[in-house]
């Protein structure tokens, strides 16, 4: 019986190890294919050139720039609102009824499918506010979409600052905001920064909402205002892989675009992970 129990344990644990291995394998295979497929076509010219001949030649510069603009919009809208909300939720409304309502709202907002955000953007920014199919409509939509992620990471960072720090500050006669500004935010900053990078990278990789708010298939120029139409990297991958005129001939372009997107998004994620690790080791309460 004892032998039996041991054998069961061995078998089950081997299975679990297999599961973990399988997941790592999936990641490696996925990255492997994209990287090896994409390197062939990747070049400076590809990154900085305009697309030509209905995207079958030339580069993806407008798509890169479009994605950067989107990130910029998200950065300037989602981040401040997210951080302010997080401060309010942790420092002012921690346990009240209103606090619960806010928490519920953020939790549910995080679960809304991205395509539904697209519908929201279409209805409100494109149609109702009259921004049309434009960079700003898409950017605002992505900002709302990333807001819950920004709030929850900032909230976690702020809540991780121990209450003893706040008490010490209050005991010295500081006001609430002075306490937050001088004693809470500085310690929470690395965490907030990490959340910011993750939110922006999430926005950079998102495709579905763009499809309803005005992403363009091909442009020979860069957008000249926030109300102009734009290209974006993730949509370019989708478009080239499913609708371009010669799917097989443009495979290298598809791979290379996917690789650029992957490098951009994973680069940011990796940076965030390293940053977090670094600061987690520094402040250990």
């Amino acid at each position, binding site marked *: *019986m*004892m032998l039996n*129990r*041991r054998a069961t344990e061995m078998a089950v644990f081997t299975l679990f190890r297999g599961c973990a291995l399988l997941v790592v394998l999936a990641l490696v295979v996925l990255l492997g294919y994209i990287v090896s497929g994409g390197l062939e076509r990747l070049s400076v010219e590809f990154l900085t050139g305009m697309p030509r001949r209905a995207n079958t030649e030339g580069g993806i510069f407008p798509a890169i720039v479009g994605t950067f603009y989107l990130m910029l919009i998200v950065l300037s809208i989602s981040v401040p609102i997210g951080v302010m909300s997080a401060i309010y939720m942790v420092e002012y409304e921690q346990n009240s009824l209103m606090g619960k309502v806010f928490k519920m709202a953020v939790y549910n907002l995080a679960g809304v499918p991205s395509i539904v955000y697209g519908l929201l953007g279409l209805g409100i920014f494109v149609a109702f506010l009259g921004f049309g199919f434009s960079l700003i409509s898409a950017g605002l939509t992505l900002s709302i979409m990333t807001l819950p992620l920004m709030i929850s990471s900032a909230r976690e960072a702020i809540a991780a600052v121990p209450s003893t720090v706040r008490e010490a500050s209050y005991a010295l006669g500081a006001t609430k905001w002075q306490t937050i500004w001088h004693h809470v935010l500085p310690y929470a900053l690395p965490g907030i920064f990490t959340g910011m990078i993750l939110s922006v990278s999430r926005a950079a990789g998102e495709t579905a909402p763009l499809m309803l708010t005005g992403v363009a298939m091909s442009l020979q120029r860069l957008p000249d205002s926030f109300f102009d139409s734009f290209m974006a990297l993730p949509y370019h991958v989708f478009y080239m892989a499913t609708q371009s005129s010669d799917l097989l001939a443009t495979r290298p372009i598809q791979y290379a675009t996917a690789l650029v997107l992957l490098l951009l998004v994973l680069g940011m994620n990796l940076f965030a992970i390293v940053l977090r690790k670094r600061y987690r080791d520094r402040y250990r309460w």
Partner: protein
Amino acid sequence: MTIAIRTDDLHVYFDKNHALKGVSMDIEMNQVTAVIGPSGCGKSTFIRCINRMNDLIPGCTVKGKVLVDGMDINDDDVDVVDVRRRIGMVFQKPNPFPKSIYENVAYGPRLHGVVETGNGKGRRRKHTKRELDEIVEHSLRRAALWDEVKDRMDKSGTSLSGGQQQRLCIARTLAVDPEIILFDEPCSALDPIATAKIEDLLVDLKKDYTVVIVTHNMQQAARISDRTAFFYLGDLIEMGDTKQIFERPQKEFTEQYITGRMG
């Protein structure tokens, strides 16, 4: 007197921290042995070696021998699970499972089953419901908890008071019928009345079991133990009959500690 446990030059390292520095000790059967010493001196580390609980701590290495019945439990071909079945442990903070009182006590017997026939290497089978009920009742009675819980066996173990929880943990350990029971400061989270109950229980248990108890409460050690070991900074400083240790300590450190001149 028979030796139940013999440790021989036992060293424990937590990464580079040398927490136990060569402890050699004999623990006698059917006695209560108390392990005392200031906090951080390696008491817990020591008794956790006896049922190999230190295996669970990342970065922890154990060197040296722990002989139980003449067999070194640190040997590679010894099954750690079997060691722990034979050597039970009760922890500082009561840790009942978030299951019913009944399930808490029945947990161990269920895992191990019963030996079918008495001829040495019997096959094991599952307990019948009757047998299990009996074991649960017997163990709870033995742990002096039966009367308090017999009407609410299906309530969660976590719903009991601290002292009751600790007796439940003792009953749970008794139910697997170990030979040795290790107690790591079992009363430090309890009030004086609950503590007194557990102390009575410990003294009663030594009829059937070998008991090792870590305590930082010297009065407790004096009240209930037959032999006492004094640890300091990872060394076993002195061991002897409890009376002797408290009345005529041989070592300067020991005297300083029991007279309260050392933290």
